[in-house]
């Protein structure tokens, strides 16, 4: 499941890499109303393409993929970014805990292993750390990377995120919602590559909105009650 916005330069290789990792995987690209050739490139490389009629934001796009997985009865779903920063050859790491039945949600984290190579700019690192600490406290489990877009879900996770997923800047809040809903979360170390093309959707101007919105969302999510998911597990 690959959300993509104007990634025609990278999406072909992303799809190819997933298919060469395991040809039996159905690759679903959710095109969030790109103005370039993202959708047709993805289709040409053999992906199932869901075209959103207008831009709904990353969270809404990702949730489209979860709903697709829910509707078509998939037991496992992986989400990775359309810009090529996630390495599909690391998919097995994310899928192992799910296949062993030890987790419902596996997050590819850049910070499990302190020796990891990801070195973000200082301000971003502080932000990542603060959100990770907050989610850890509110969710009751240590989380190292709440802003990662590389994750894998089992059926219980798909069922949760298909109905419960924030629409903009979703990752931090979604992690807390997962914990509060009783999903078993596990983290594996992944490396992230430099962007191949396009630019990060988080610009400096939007950072303030990002921080305030996520803080409010975390506050509110910790005040809400979420139905526990024990019952739906296989």
């Amino acid at each position, binding site marked *: 499941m690959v959300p993509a916005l104007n990634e025609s330069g990278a999406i072909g290789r992303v799809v190819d890499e997933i298919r060469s990792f395991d040809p039996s995987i159905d690759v679903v690209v959710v095109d969030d109303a790109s103005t370039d050739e993202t959708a047709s490139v993805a289709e040409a490389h053999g992906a199932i393409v869901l075209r959103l*009629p*207008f831009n709904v934001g990353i969270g809404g796009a990702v949730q489209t993929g979860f709903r697709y997985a829910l509707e078509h009865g998939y037991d496992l779903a992986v989400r990775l970014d359309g810009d090529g920063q996630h390495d599909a050859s690391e998919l097995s790491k994310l899928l192992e805990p799910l296949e062993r039945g030890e987790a419902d949600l596996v997050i590819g984290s850049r910070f499990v292993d302190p020796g990891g190579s990801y070195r973000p700019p200082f301000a971003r690192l502080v932000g990542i750390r603060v959100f990770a600490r907050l989610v850890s406290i509110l969710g009751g489990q240590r989380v190292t990377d709440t802003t990662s877009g590389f994750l894998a879900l089992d059926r219980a996770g798909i069922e949760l995120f298909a109905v419960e997923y*924030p*629409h*903009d800047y979703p990752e931090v809040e979604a992690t807390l919602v997962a914990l509060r809903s009783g999903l078993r979360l596990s983290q594996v170390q992944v490396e992230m590559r430099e962007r191949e093309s396009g630019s990060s959707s988080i610009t400096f101007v939007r950072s303030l*909105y990002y921080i*305030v*919105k996520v803080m*409010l*969302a975390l*506050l*509110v999510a910790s*005040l*809400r009650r979420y139905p526990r998911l024990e019952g739906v597990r296989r």
Partner: protein
Amino acid sequence: MTPVRVSVVGAAASLLLLLVVLELVRGRRLKERYALLWLATGVVLLVLSAWRDGLNTIAGWLGVTSYPPAVLFAVATLFILLVLLHYSTVISKLTDDNVDLAQRIALLEERIGRARPTEPPARAD
């Protein structure tokens, strides 16, 4: 100087606004995105109500010498205008999106109709 009673009532009203907005978000009747401006309104009005010297100073800057609480009303009005303007932009986008959706449904229905020219026979249950 601002009458104490005005400060107390102003602060209480701002607090009430903040609590109502938070409760609406918690109950999913208001999205975070649309709550932020309301929260900013509540915080600014709360600060101006509780911080009496500050309100006086700002009133002085603005040339409001006879009755500082007038600044409270002015700021509240300004924020209401901002919220309304924000909503106008939101409604404009929703209108465009809605037209887009309607057009896409029309095109899809036409395509489905062409793929299945005759109605399938009614199932006998």
